[in-house]
């Protein structure tokens, strides 16, 4: 398939692997912060193409890049409380349906009679609201900067068109404050970042330039195909080996320095920055987006009064450490045993973008313990 196959070319991949192997002289720890990259890396075995011998091991760790994983449990419980109301049609991206709250998930609520629907775009939820004027239609608006423009557009259009029965339970998160929190944690091991290509396609790269300078850390914006990833890894490792800390963007076919200006304007118009709790990490200042007060009539948290619901995390799960790059899925004693995609203990096993789920799916959880990984 055009524009895809050439980025999965085996000869190119092998050539890049050899170049990286010749370049690296010391061990390095690199983090990616996008669920799509987590999957591509594990699926194509990009991490296993890195040098692994004793003194120059390149370790790729998966950061908090899965929006489903970092959505706090209490937000999920709030969603369930709303979805369980008889006049509500609750709409969501597919991933969110299977995420367990403290008691149920949306699929279980659906089997008990709740009207829960998967949509591919929040605009579909607005359409459902127009078609069902007597029902309250709620969209679960989660995600990073990538899903924010479409979510903002849905709220904006609902207000323009007077779709009063449409509201959004918004729990957006922002990447740069999370990177900053990881870098400033005393136990931090991360020495360089692969930049999230889709997030940068919306927001541009200037926020990341600031991080490079303030924290002396190199960041290379990466795409999602194996060649994109290997190319970005080569650039990043070269910076590390040469002692540079710059923002590089080899993913220019998608990412412009200023990002997508109309999309950024729309986000700015509908959302405002807020403190946000991240599952497994805790509260990070100015790390989320919430609806501006002008859009209160479309804010589900305001309309349904669920903010009193607060829930604590399962204490045995180490997903918080995994999301910060301090542990890998296989380090968890529960991985592939008590904790599987069928019965997930924590966030990173739940979503198909989560690091634990990706390792379980492509590297066979239980088998990993016996050497399959």
């Amino acid at each position, binding site marked *: *398939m055009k524009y*895809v196959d050439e980025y*999965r*070319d*085996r000869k190119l*991949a*092998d050539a890049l692997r050899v170049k990286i192997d010749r370049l690296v002289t010391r061990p390095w720890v690199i983090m990616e912060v996008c*669920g*799509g990259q987590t999957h591509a890396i*594990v*699926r*194509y*075995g*990009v991490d*296993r*193409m890195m040098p692994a011998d004793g003194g120059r091991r390149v370790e790729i760790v998966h950061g908090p890049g899965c*929006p*489903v994983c970092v959505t706090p449990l209490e937000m999920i419980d709030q969603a369930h409380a709303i979805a369980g109301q008889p006049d509500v049609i609750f709409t969501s*991206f*597919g*991933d*969110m*349906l*299977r995420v367990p709250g403290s008691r149920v998930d949306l*699929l279980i609520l659906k089997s008990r009679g709740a009207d829960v629907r*998967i949509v*591919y775009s929040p605009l*579909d939820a607005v359409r459902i609201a127009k078609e069902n004027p007597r029902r309250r239609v709620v969209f679960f608006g*989660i*995600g*990073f900067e*990538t*899903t924010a423009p479409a979510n903002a557009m849905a709220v904006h259009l609902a207000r323009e068109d007077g779709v009063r029965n449409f509201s959004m339970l918004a729990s957006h998160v922002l990447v740069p404050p999370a990177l900053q929190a990881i870098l400033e944690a005393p136990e931090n091991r991360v020495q360089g970042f692969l930049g999230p290509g*889709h997030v940068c396609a919306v927001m541009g790269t200037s926020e990341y330039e600031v991080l490079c300078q303030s924290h002396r850390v190199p960041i290379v914006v990466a795409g999602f195909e*194996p060649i994109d990833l290997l190319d970005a890894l080569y650039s990043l490792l070269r910076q590390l080996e040469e002692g540079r800390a710059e923002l590089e963007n080899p993913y220019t076919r998608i990412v412009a320095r200023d990002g997508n200006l109309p999309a950024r304007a729309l986000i700015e118009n509908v959302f405002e920055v807020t403190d946000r709790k991240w599952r497994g990490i805790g509260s990070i200042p100015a790390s989320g987006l919430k609806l501006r007060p002008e859009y209160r009539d479309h804010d589900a948290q305001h309309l349904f009064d669920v903010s009193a619901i607060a829930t604590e995390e399962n204490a045995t799960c180490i997903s918080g450490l995994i999301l910060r790059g301090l542990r890998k899925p296989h380090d968890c004693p529960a991985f592939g045993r008590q904790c*599987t*995609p*069928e019965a997930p203990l924590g966030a990173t096993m739940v*979503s*198909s*973008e989560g690091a634990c789920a990706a390792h*379980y*799916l*492509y*590297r*066979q959880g239980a*088998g990993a313990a016996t050497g*399959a990984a």
Partner: protein
Amino acid sequence: MPFVSTGSAIPSCPAPIGATGEVLLGHGSGGKLTAQLIERRILPAFQNAALAALDDQAIVPFLGPRLAFTTDSYVVTPIFFPGGDIGELAVNGTVNDLAMGGAAPLYLSLAFILEEGFPLADLDRVIASIRRSAERAGVAIVTGDTKVVDRGKGDKIFINTAGVGIPMQGTRLGSSEVKPGDAILLSGTIGDHGVAILSVREGLELEGDVRSDTAPLHGLTKAMLAASRDIHAMRDPTRGGLAATLVEIASRRRLGIEVDEASIPMRDGVKGACEILGLDPLLLANEGKLVAFVPEESAGRVLEAMRRDPLGRDAARIGRVTAERPGTVVLSTRLGRERIVDLPAGAQLPRIC
């Protein structure tokens, strides 16, 4: 049975409605409406002596020491989709289950569960499609049943078909016959049905024209068995896709399976839909494809026979069975790395970004 009031002030016995455009509960009552439905809409489509007798069972001629027997229920939404409909699936699916046992399909049963309010015009369309599909497959529908459930208790139309057929002599097909060293052959592109259904169910405006691959495969299997009787097993990778079929055989038989990702045929439209939606094509349903496990020495002959058949035009050798890593399906990716193929916990859910 529904009734109408005459609307006059004088009380009178209500009379039943004769003809409306929808299925009524009365169509399942066993009374006149049921008889009308069967005689006017169903019987004319499937003319044969066994069915026309309208007895409680069909009594049919049968020759042979072994009988292949299968049943399947069809509940697809939407009932009409690009490349087919529920009626065509109900015939082809059951025909294919017989064909995978090396059997020539002979007779099908046909049972409808209709939801009250289902448009009769749609029922007629489904029946016409069943007739065409049965003719194409060369099978006779010899017995049947119709039930109606209250509105809201069903979803338009459910179909069950059972089928019998005669296995080709000298064949011994089954997953228990699969052995290390077997070549794995796939009859064509994967994921077409899954994407076709998804495109209409979710209202996705996908570029390219992806249509369901629903087709009866017994002609193809016959040609394959004519090329070599020692085929070990055949499977149609329907629900759960190619992954489910391979994982099931690997785990049940405690065998290893190695598959080469680059060798699996796939249409660009399917690839594109999977890229956009974050779906794994290995998990998407197929309705007109088969996977065969063939001893290495016969693999070339069987593959040639497949490619001569229009339904096996894109057939390919995709991998082999091994004794190593029992219970595991390993896919070598385009980059020459390995990944383990497993099944999702529940339904495959589209990824968020």
